[in-house]
């Protein structure tokens, strides 16, 4: 039966890759149309520095890697020399990564515990309702007075952004655990709350926890750039720094660098997610 289906697919009029090719073709077409509009817009904009064209921007992007820049290493002391683009990207990662990871760990932990324990939920729900609507960037004032606007301050802002997204992912995931599954586990000898959380609630909530984390990867890029516009070192700072010198093409180059970095992280995490959630 399955053999027949397999040979049946092969003898179909259209080879299997045709539909994929058509889809990719459309994607490339959309991209090309955008580049054309951009290029035309840049060509007719006067003065020309207001809108750098795609070719100038690409050249600026390549230039990001042409010269080395030395950056100081936080905590460890000393310094590190990298091509300029990578150097500033590394500076961003110095606050992005700790903020994201710490925020995710704290958010997921609190989300799981609160979703699981009705009493804690009662205690904290009003407080969370009150704090949640505050945009992470609003906390920048405290970041500045507490930590100064450097890595720690920027990491703090990223932490807040990552915290909420991961909190809600985990909270919703645990709240949505099927009661039948916990019943089944109970009849199979799971007695303690902690074992139930580990054996049933956590794996059951995993898809939502992971989606929450993946969303926070993207959201934190927006937040980190926002924080750097206030002066923390990194790619966001370089965007505004370049535009202050009217080097808009360099600004676009850094924007492209952020976009590519995010894409790599997102694709990588999706692969990890797919492997982890093979059961779905």
């Amino acid at each position: 039966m399955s053999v027949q289906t397999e040979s049946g697919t092969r003898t179909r009029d259209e080879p299997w890759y045709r539909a994929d090719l058509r889809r990719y073709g459309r994607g490339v077409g959309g991209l090309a149309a955008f580049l054309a509009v951009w290029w035309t817009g840049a060509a007719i904009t006067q003065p020309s520095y207001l809108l750098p064209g795609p070719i100038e921007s690409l050249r600026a992007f390549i230039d990001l890697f042409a010269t080395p820049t030395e950056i100081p290493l936080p905590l460890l002391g000393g310094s590190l020399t990298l091509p300029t683009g990578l150097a500033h990207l590394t500076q961003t990662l110095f606050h992005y990564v700790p903020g994201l990871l710490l925020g995710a760990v704290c958010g997921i932990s609190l989300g799981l515990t609160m979703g699981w324990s009705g009493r804690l939920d009662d205690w904290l729900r009003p407080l969370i309702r009150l704090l949640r609507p505050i945009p992470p960037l609003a906390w920048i004032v405290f970041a500045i007075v507490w930590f100064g606007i450097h890595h720690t301050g920027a990491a703090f802002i990223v932490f807040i952004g990552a915290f909420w997204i991961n909190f809600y992912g985990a909270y919703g995931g645990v709240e949505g655990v099927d009661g039948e599954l916990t019943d089944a586990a109970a009849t199979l000898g799971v007695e303690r709350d902690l074992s139930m959380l580990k054996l049933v609630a956590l794996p059951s909530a995993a898809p939502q926890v992971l989606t929450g984390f993946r969303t926070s990867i993207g959201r934190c890029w927006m937040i980190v750039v926002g924080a750097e516009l206030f002066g923390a070192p990194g790619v966001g700072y370089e965007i505004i720094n370049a535009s202050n010198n009217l080097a808009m093409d360099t600004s676009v180059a850094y924007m492209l660098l952020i976009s590519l970095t995010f894409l790599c992280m997102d694709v990588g995490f999706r692969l990890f997610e797919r492997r982890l959630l093979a059961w779905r």
Partner: protein
Amino acid sequence: MAMTDSQPGESAGNPKIDIRNLSMAYESGETSVQALSAVSFAVDPGEFCCVVGPSGCGKTSLLRAIAGLETPDTGGVVVGGEPVTGPGLDRGMVFQEYALFPWRTVRGNIRFGLDRPACGCADCEARVDELVDLVGLDGFGDAYPKALSGGMKQRVGIARALAVDPEILLMDEPFGSVDARTRDRLHTELLDIWAETEQTVVFVTHDIDEAVRLADRIVIMDSEPGTVRSALSVDLPRPRDRTDATFVDHVARIREVLAGRQGRTAE
């Protein structure tokens, strides 16, 4: 209403499950629904007991009370001489909608109860192999539940409950969502397993045919509120033939009782 607490032809020995004057109510919005009202009956060791009744007669609540998943308002359940205060490994449960852990493979699901510290099995892997074989799932051990049909899922559900070797198997309309042909096959397999393990089974269903096919004794329940209307012994040799005159007669009698005519208690 005739409240028959009859255990026809049964010895006066110690029952495996003794349900005593069980009452339970649910709060649903502002009204309180009486799920069970003064339900009493007993199940003997090794007996295959079916509970039939219309939907909403509290059969599931009854089963969950025996499992220890619900606490009754009054009365209680005594299992093997001990009052039920919560779930325990001595009572395995098979759920209507399977309730398999979707993130665990077939083997992983079956293994779940064996991983508990309370359960000391010398060779868990061998036990899992044995169970996979018992429920006829060879070759599917590493499949995730999403890849299985309803009948196969319920086989996993049964194997998972059997894994910890419970003395009592509680089954909540386990074959309600599988097609008729698969159900027939599962009946035969379940009876084989039961004959082999000598477990006490409480099997809830709304399908009278199914009850007569499987049970040693059938407890017939009435709804609103859930009460036991009557009990009926089925003394037919297995395997039972649906077209057999006595089989048909049993089905007709249960139907009569359920239809509200005065229940005639068997024998």
